[in-house]
């Protein structure tokens, strides 16, 4: 296991180098200029050139690339052009919010997806199964921004139950801040719960046809014991894969959700950085998100071994 982990971590270094290169190229190939965005619509070419020189953006691409790689090796992500702070600091300020949102949305998606998936598999072909499957399809098809705007309309504007947007005033406590994350977590979690539900259903259907499940039933075990202790235990490795992918996907989904709900998280940071062409932030944020993605995949592989004794590395 230790050797396996070391091998995977070494591979991660290569992957992250490739990611850094791709991210740098993408950020610089897209047209647009942070100096022009910062100066506003009245700027002339001379104004823009003067600011580019002040910001150090007039260096050639290879020079900027080498500077970028050097800073990455030193685990520094550079200074934001717009935010008057380092990219690391900007990410550190926003990561807790995105993390909370992702965990809440993932928990919601899992708590909805797994029980419904199991129920749907157990009641295969019945009216219950058909209704749940149709609901899952609808849930998976709804864009999270639409769910978000609908929730705002009913829960915030009409019923005044939850706040519309933002992350609470400066002195807000943990519970109050949580109230700002409920609607975004629902908007983000529902489409993903449908995915987990469908996957759980399929995995459970495969397992429920196995001989040992029939044997368990024949022994006269309670249906709940058969389903959860025998069948689901073997289906959970595949469900875990989809949960892992969902968590990674939620990071992408957070970009849209955070914009709709004006949440100052990493997703919002990425959108703003792209619109402003804040290269260091685009590069730094994408690099960190890719790193998290790779780590999640590694974590899932390790969990396989923990959950399934047959898996050995």
């Amino acid at each position: 296991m230790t050797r396996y982990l070391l091998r995977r971590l070494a591979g991660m270094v290569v992957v992250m180098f490739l990611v850094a290169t791709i991210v740098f190229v993408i950020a610089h190939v897209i047209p647009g200029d942070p100096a022009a965005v910062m100066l506003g619509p009245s700027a002339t070419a001379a104004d823009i050139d003067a600011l580019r020189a002040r910001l150090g953006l007039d260096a050639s691409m290879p020079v900027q690339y080498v500077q970028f790689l050097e800073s990455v090796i030193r685990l520094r992500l550079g200074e934001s052009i717009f935010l008057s702070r380092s990219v690391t600091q900007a990410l550190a300020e926003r990561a807790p919010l995105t993390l909370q949102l992702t965990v809440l949305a993932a928990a919601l998606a899992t708590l909805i997806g797994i029980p419904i998936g199991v129920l749907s598999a157990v009641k295969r072909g019945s009216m219950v199964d058909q209704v749940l499957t149709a609901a899952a399809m609808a849930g998976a098809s709804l864009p999270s921004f639409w769910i978000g705007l609908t929730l705002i309309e009913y829960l915030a504007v009409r019923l005044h139950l939850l706040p519309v947007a933002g992350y609470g005033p400066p002195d807000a406590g943990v519970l109050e801040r949580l109230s700002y994350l409920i609607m975004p977590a629902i908007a983000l979690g529902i489409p993903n719960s449908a995915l987990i539900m469908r996957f759980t259903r399929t995995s459970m259907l495969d397992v429920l046809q196995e001989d040992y499940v029939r044997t368990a039933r024949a022994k006269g075990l309670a249906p709940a014991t058969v389903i959860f202790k025998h069948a689901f235990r073997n289906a959970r490795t595949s469900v875990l894969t989809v949960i892992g992918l969902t968590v990674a996907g939620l990071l992408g989904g957070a970009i849209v959700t955070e914009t709709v709900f004006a949440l100052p998280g990493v997703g919002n940071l990425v959108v703003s950085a792209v619109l402003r062409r804040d290269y260091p932030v685009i590069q730094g944020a994408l690099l960190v998100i890719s790193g998290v993605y790779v780590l999640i995949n590694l974590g899932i592989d390790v969990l396989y071994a923990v959950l399934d004794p047959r898996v050995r590395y």
Partner: protein
Amino acid sequence: MPRSKQNWSPSVQRRALMLGGAAGLLMPNWRARAQTASVLNIATSGDPGPLDPTPVTSDLLSEITQLFYETLYIFGPDYGIAPLLAAELPEISDGGKRYVIKLRSGVPFHDGSTMTADDVVASLQRWGRLSPRGRTPWAFLDSISAKDPATVEIVLKQPYSPLLNLLAFPNGSPQIMPKRIATAPDPLKDFTGTGPFRLMEYKPDTWVRVGKFPQYVSPQGTANGYVGRREALVDEVRFLPSPNPTTRADGLLAGQYHWADNLTPESYARIHGKPDVAPGVLTAALWVLFIMNNKKGVMSNVLVRRAAQAAIACTDALAAAFGEKSLWTPEGSIYPQGTAWYDADAPGYNQGNPDKAATLLKQSGYKGEPIRILTSTQYDYQYKTAQVIEANLTEAGFKIELVVTDWATILQRRQNPDQWDAFVTGHGVVPEPSSITVFNPSYPGWWDTPDKHALLEAFVTESDPVERVPLWHKLQAQFYIDVPTVKIGAGFTMYGASKRMTGFYPGIWPAFWNTRLSA
């Protein structure tokens, strides 16, 4: 036997109580806080970026920084100039080359020091070095000095009449700050000013918080727009970036925000007829411009540009872009009625005549080359305007290629005359005509014919405000002869405000001093 609701087990009851308690703790808290009379919550369309208004001309940034920074002069409702940190209008002598500026005495900075002429000189030097508005007059600067602690003298090498107006702008602005800050290396890190509020905290994409400055010394006189008495009537103004216009309108309707900036026609319609909020438009309308490439390509031929002007139905474009009639105005005069610069004579405006356009196009020798129009969906009204223009021009015989990108891409592409033929943009009202971008020969579009050059030279060197008016009318006439740009019309910027708010000024840059929030 199934359990009835009345027979819930103690553990279920305990859980239900806990959930209810948690909900009770969470739910009403945010709303109760929004109802306090001490914090004004303003939802803005985005983050303002670095809080130094000198190097940039962003209107959003000015809306925020004008609460903590002040300039020597300021614009009146009719675009006249009034003193703000200056004690009076300057004495101008030596044929418009010498400006003597008397300062108000006893004006405190937020750091406790008192403003002197040395601070003003250092601040203006910084402006001349960094501001796109300051660099032009500073090219004519002979000297600037503090004559005594309350008097500043500026001597120019040649008359430059826009100087006074440029000193009044809150963007690209010559805000006055202590000398120790004005002479410190860039970028600005200390935002000490003289305004009725002082900066408390800037957290990018989260908020800009400004708090009441109790030692503030206000200019005298009845409050009238940006002029006259200023007072902080709330403890704090909080600017909250909320990029989605529907979310801004919803936040206003739910009572979380007191003001929602820059609404779209759709989000504006949502707040109509609601009991607690009032829709409104800013007093100065945004100019919608179709700017053509005068330097290179097909559009550098004036006959092609005149053909485009003949083809465009401005009222159709405005209706598509802004919706209901009260939100736009078809006006050929560059400046609106009621201002000194207004001139109704705008020949060729709003023709929508494809036959005339086709004739002009034939005379021009146009051979069907594609016309690349840059536009962005990031600004809804610009995209809709571009779509109508595309239809108008196509009907007249133009071959149009609509290039839809994000705004940052347009800002870069338009700097290169080989990459475009026209683009649609909005232009905020600028009280000084020579600050209109299309009159700047370096601005994309590059309008610089000899006649226009001579007229602009005469206009910026004429120091008598009365004599400047007919010169401006000649410049507007030249605008309709050369057709460097088609002025489509003016669209009003929409906002929504809580009915609890009173005393705000919905000018070019909405102002929130003198604003009270009832409980």
